[in-house]
């Protein structure tokens, strides 16, 4: 009986330990509300970069890191193939895939607006996008573009609802 109890306690501890590990990977649900009054005229930058994600990001060392793209490869000096992350959903349930990248690419190309940081961050006219499959796209540039990935790091990826209801503002440009 004693042995049995000891054994069951060990089993229980193992299970607790196991479930502990399981819990450790679980992320607590977001809670509460923050009300902010921020008169800094630049706050739109941090808001925008917290609302929209990008294919790649530059970390604090200036290294490109994967975000919505999991990988990228130059097939030749004008063709950049990008592999897209799977299993990503927007807040409204829309699925992130190659069609979403195309939508954002077309809006980016169509507007050719004065970029927030500089016109040099616009893609050259004639740049285009090809969908290979739901998780792969190719950017094809009219001439070699060494800054292409940095431009993509600043090209916001929005969902269909955003373009349906809002779109990028400043139509007067």
């Amino acid at each position, binding site marked *: 009986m004693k042995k049995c109890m000891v054994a069951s306690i060990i089993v229980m501890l193992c299970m607790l330990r196991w479930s502990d590990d399981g819990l450790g*990977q679980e*992320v*607590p*649900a*977001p*809670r*509460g*509300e*923050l*009300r*902010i*009054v*921020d*008169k*800094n005229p630049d*706050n739109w930058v941090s*808001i925008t970069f*917290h*609302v929209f994600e990008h294919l790649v990001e530059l970390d604090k060392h200036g290294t490109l890191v994967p975000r919505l793209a999991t990988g990228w490869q130059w097939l030749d000096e004008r063709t950049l193939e990008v592999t897209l*992350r799977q*299993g*990503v*959903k*927007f*807040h409204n*349930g829309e699925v992130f895939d190659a069609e979403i990248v195309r939508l954002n690419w077309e809006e980016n190309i169509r507007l*050719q607006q*004065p970029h927030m*940081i*500089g*016109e040099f961050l616009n893609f050259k006219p004639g740049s285009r996008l090809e969908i290979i499959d739901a998780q792969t796209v190719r950017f094809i540039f009219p001439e070699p573009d060494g800054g292409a990935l940095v431009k993509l790091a600043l090209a916001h990826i929005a969902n269909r609802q955003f373009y349906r209801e809002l779109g990028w503002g400043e139509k007067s*440009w």
Partner: protein
Amino acid sequence: MEANTEYWDTSRFPRVQRITFDNTLNQKDAVELVKTTEGRVDLVTELRPLDTLRVAESPFAQVVKNRGSLLAVAGWFNMRQAGSR
């Protein structure tokens, strides 16, 4: 802004359910509310030095200081549209 509870990257998972930027309040009222109430205004930025002293005395709020980063101010021109300023 509402949290995306389906966000893929658990290392950056949202911790706050909702964030509201309230542009209807002026700075003076915002500082007053953060000092004297709980929940109406949670965070006010760009405090003037004298305000930091007043907020520091409040039981509802505390002053958080941060080392400032180098600030660059830039302007740019729209070279596409004639007559745009």
